[in-house]
C-alpha cells in the first residue's frame, strides 16, 4: 500500500509553483491526532442504554406524528370555507408532519453522535491531476482519433462541419420569433411593439371615467384637492380577450384639481387643463409601476415601487427618485354635458422608456 502511494506521487508530474507563499524554514511540527476522548456512552453502559432508548423512542414518536397528521387531515375539514378551518387544517397537519420529520432527524443524528463509533479515521488525499501515464494515454487517444479521422489534417471537412453545425441552430432560433404575434388583418399593429407602445386608447372626445366602475366624471365632481383614478369610458366594456389589461396598463390616468394659480403650466399646454383640473398618466416613467400615491398638500405624486416623486403643479416633473422624465399629460376639456373628456391621445409614449422612443 505504502509503495503504491509513493510510486503514484512520482507519477504526478513536477511539484507545482507555490507562487508568493513563503516557505517557513522551521515550521511548527504537526503533533498528530490527539488521543481519543471517550464519550459517556463509551464508558458508562447505563448511558449507552439510555441513548439507545432515546433513539428508538424518537423513531416511535415520529410514527405517532405521521399518524396524527393523517388524523388531522380527516379531523379538520375545510369544506365550509371558513378561514379558521383552513388555519386549523394547515396548523395541525403541519405540526404532525413536522413532528414526524424532526423526530426521525433528531433520532438519526443522536444515533450517529452518541452510539456510533466516534474514532476519527484518516484517508490519504491524492493530487487531483491524473497520473502521467493516464494523461499520456488520454493524449494518445486523441492523437490516434485525429490521425484516423484526419480531423486536424482535412481542414475543409472540419471547417465546413463546424459551419454547418452553427448554421443548423439558426432555424431553431428563428422559430422563436413566434413568441410574439405578427401583424394580421384583424390586428394590423400586433407585430409592431413600437407602434403599440406609442399609442393608448385615448381619443378626442373620450370621456374620463372612474376606475374600475367606468362611470364618467363631471368636472363639477372634481373638488379642490381631490384625486381620481381614471380610465377611458369604453375600457370598462372591453373583455379580457380584447386586451382589457393591456389597454388599461397604458391608459390609466390620475386626475387632480389644484387652484389655477398653483399650476405652473407651459405656454403651449395652457389649454390642456380645465379649471385647475389636470390629468397625468399613472404609469411611472421609471419602470412602469402605477404612481398611485397623491400627496394633497404638496401636490406630489409618489411611486410606491421605487419612490420616484413628481410635482403635479409643475407638469409632473421628476423631483426625486430614479425616474428621468415627467409623467405624460393627457389634454382634457369638458363636453356639453359637463363631463371631462380627452382632447387627444397622449402626445408621447407612456410608461418606461424604450430604445426606439425617439
Amino acid at each position, binding site marked *: 500500500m505504502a509503495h503504491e502511494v509513493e510510486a503514484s506521487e512520482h507519477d504526478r508530474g513536477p511539484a507545482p509553483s507555490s507562487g*508568493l507563499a513563503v516557505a517557513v524554514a522551521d515550521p511548527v511540527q*504537526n503533533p498528530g491526532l490527539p488521543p481519543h476522548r471517550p464519550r459517556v456512552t463509551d464508558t458508562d453502559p447505563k448511558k449507552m442504554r439510555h441513548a439507545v432508548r432515546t433513539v428508538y423512542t424518537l423513531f416511535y414518536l415520529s410514527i405517532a406524528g405521521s399518524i396524527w397528521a393523517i388524523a388531522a387531515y380527516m379531523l379538520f375539514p375545510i369544506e365550509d370555507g371558513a378561514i379558521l378551518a383552513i388555519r386549523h387544517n394547515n396548523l395541525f397537519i*403541519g405540526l404532525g408532519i413536522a413532528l414526524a420529520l424532526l423526530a426521525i432527524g433528531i433520532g438519526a443524528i443522536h444515533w450517529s453522535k452518541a452510539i456510533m463509533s466516534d474514532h476519527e479515521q484518516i484517508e490519504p488525499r491524492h493530487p487531483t491531476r491524473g497520473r502521467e501515464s493516464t494523461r499520456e494515454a488520454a493524449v494518445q487517444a486523441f492523437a490516434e482519433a485525429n490521425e484516423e479521422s484526419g480531423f486536424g489534417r482535412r481542414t475543409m471537412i472540419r471547417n465546413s462541419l463546424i459551419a454547418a453545425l452553427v448554421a443548423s441552430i439558426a432555424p431553431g432560433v428563428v422559430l422563436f420569433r413566434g413568441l410574439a404575434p405578427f401583424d394580421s388583418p384583424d390586428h394590423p399593429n400586433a407585430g409592431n411593439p*413600437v407602434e403599440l407602445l406609442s399609442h393608448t386608447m385615448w381619443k378626442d372626445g373620450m370621456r374620463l371615467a372612474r376606475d374600475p366602475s367606468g362611470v364618467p366624471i363631471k368636472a363639477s365632481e372634481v373638488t379642490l384637492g381631490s384625486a381620481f383614478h381614471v380610465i377611458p369610458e369604453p375600457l370598462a366594456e372591453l373583455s379580457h380577450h380584447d386586451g382589457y*389589461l393591456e389597454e388599461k396598463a397604458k391608459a390609466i390616468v390620475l386626475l387632480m384639481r389644484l387652484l389655477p394659480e398653483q399650476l405652473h403650466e407651459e405656454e403651449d399646454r395652457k389649454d390642456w387643463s380645465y379649471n385647475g383640473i389636470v390629468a397625468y398618466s399613472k404609469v*411611472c416613467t421609471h419602470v412602469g409601476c402605477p404612481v398611485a400615491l397623491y400627496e394633497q398638500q404638496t401636490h406630489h405624486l409618489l411611486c*410606491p415601487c421605487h*419612490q420616484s416623486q413628481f410635482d403635479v403643479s409643475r407638469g409632473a416633473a421628476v423631483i426625486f427618485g430614479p425616474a428621468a422624465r415627467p409623467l405624460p399629460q393627457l389634454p382634457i376639456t369638458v363636453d356639453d354635458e359637463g363631463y371631462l373628456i380627452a382632447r387627444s391621445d397622449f402626445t408621447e409614449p407612456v410608461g418606461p422608456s424604450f*430604445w426606439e422612443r425617439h
Partner: protein
Amino acid sequence: MSTATVTEKPTTAKDKPLGGRFVGATANYLDERTSISGFIKELGRKIFPDHWSFMLGEIALWSFVVVLLSGTFLTFFFQASMVETHYTGAYAPLRGVEMSAALASTLEISFDIRGGLLVRQIHHWAALVFVAGIGIHMLRVFFTGAFRKPRELNWVIGFILFILAMGEGFTGYSLPDDLLSGNGLRIIDGMIKGIPLIGTWTSFLLFGGEFPGTEIVGRLYVLHILLLPAILAALLLLHLMLMIINKHTQFAGPGRTNDNVVGYPMMPVYMSKMGGFFFIVFGVIVLVASVFQINPIWNYGPYDPSPVSAGTQPDWYIGFADGALRLVPPHLESVFLNHTWSWNILLPLAVIGIFIVLVLIYPFIEAWITGDKREHHIAQRPRNAATRTAIGAAGVTFYAVLWAAASSDLIATHFWLTMEGVIHSLQALLILGPIVAYFITKRICIALQKKDREIALHGYESGRIVRLPGGEYIEVHQPVDEYERWKLVSYETNEPLVVRPNAQGRIPWHENLRSSISRWFFEDRLTPVTQTEVDEALAHQHHNLEHIEEEETAEIQAAHDRAGVPDAPLVATEDRVHETGNKPSTVIATDDKGEGWSGTGGGPKKD
C-alpha cells in the same frame, strides 16, 4: 462499536452473508449486472471531515429536495393559464371576481384542497431557505478560502446555482398572477425595455405582445418547472461529484494535513448524520410553514395594472436588485443617436452585473495574484487571510446596503425619517460602507492573528493572579497544549511580489499590476511562528512557572517553620481549598484538586 460488529459477524457465521441470505442474493444479483460493489467499495467508507460550517451547504441541498417534493405536489393542481375565469371557490371575498385560471387554481390549492395551503407554504418557505442556504454556504467557502485550487470550477458552478435559484424564485413568485407578482413583472418589463437595442423586442417576445398579455404565466411555468430545474439539478449533481472527486476541505487541526482527510466514514456516520439532517431541514420548514403565513395572495387579488399598495417588496433575495434601482439619482436618461439611453436602468444593471462577475471570478483573481499553483485542501481561518476577509466584508456590506435600499420606504415610515434622507444616506453608505468595513475587518483580522501568536507562544491568561515576593502582581500564563497550539500556528503567509525584469530585460505591465495588487494584499502580515520560537517560549515559560513555584514553596515552608509546624503540607488539602490565606501568594482561582500549578500540560484546556 459498529466496526466491531462488522468484523465479528463473519467469524461467527462464516457461510452466512452479511444481512442474511436474501440481502446477499439481492446484492449479488445487482452486482453481477451493475458492478455496484466497486462503487460501494470506493464511497461506502469514504472519509468526510467534520465541522459545523460544512453543514451550511447541506441546508441548501436538502431544502432544494423539499422544494422539488412540494413543487411536484403543486403541479398536480396548479393551472399555468391566464384564461379568464370567475372565481367560484371557497374563499368568499373573492367569489365572482374575474381572474386568471392561474390565480383561481392557486386559490383552490389554498382553500379547497386539504393541506394544499400547507404544501404551498412549504414550497415558498423552502425556496427562501434554499437561496439563503446557498448564500451562507458561499460565504463560508469564500471566507475560508475553500475556493482555491482545485475547487475554482466548483465555485463557479455553485455561483451559477445561486443565480439559477434566484431565477427559480422569481419565476415561481410570478406564477400565481396576483397583484403583487404582476407588479413585480411590470418592473421586470420596465427594466427589460430600458436595455439598448434589444430591450423592446425582448419584452415583446417574452410577454407574447404587449404587457401583461396572456402568455407570460405559461412561459414562466415552463422555465420554472422544466428548464431551470433541469439545469439546476444537472449542475447540482456536477457540484456534488466534484466535491467527492476533490474531497472535502478540512480545517487545520492536529493530525490534519494537506495530504489527508480526517473524519468519519460515509457509512454509517454521515449516512445517519446527513440523512438525519435532511429530516431536520424538512421538519423545520414544515414547522415554519404550519405556523407562519407566507404570500397571502388572497389579500392581494388578481393583477390589475392600476392599483398598487404602498410598502410592496419582493422576496428577500431579489431585494438587492430592487434596491439598486431605487438608489439611482433622478434624471439619468439621455437621447443619443435618436435613441433613448435609460441610464437609470443601465447603471444599476451594470453595478449588479459587475458585482456578480467579480464574485464569480474572484478565485481566478486571487490565484493570479498569488501565482500559487498548489492544491489547497486546508480551509483557512478567515483571520489568516486578512485582505480577502476584508474584501468579503466590503462585498457583504455593499450587498447589505442595496438590500436595505429595497425597504427604503419602510425604513422611512417605521423610523419617522424622510424618504429622501433614507435614500441619500443609503447612497452615501453604498460607497462609504464597504470602505469602512474593509479597513475595520482587516485591522480586526490582524489583531486576531497577533492574539493567536501571543497565545501560541506565551500561553493563555489563566486568570490566576500571583503576587511576587517583590510585591509585584502578575497573571500566570499557562501554555496551551500542543494540539491547540497547532490550530493557532499552522498557516502559511504570502509576501508581496518583487518584480524582476524578464529575459528581454523588461518588466511587463501586468507583472507591475500584479506586484502592486500583491502589495495591497500581503503588505500587512505576521511571520508564521517557527518551531524554534515555540520551543524557546515554552522553555522560558516552564522556567518561569517553576521559579514561581519554587519561591512559593520556600515562602510557605518558611512560614510553616516560623509557626513551628515544619511538617505541615505545602499545598492546601482538599477540604480547605476554598479558604484563602494559606499561601503567601493569594490564589484567586485554583486548579481543581488543589494540585497547585506544577503541571504545565494539566491545566484546563482553553477551548
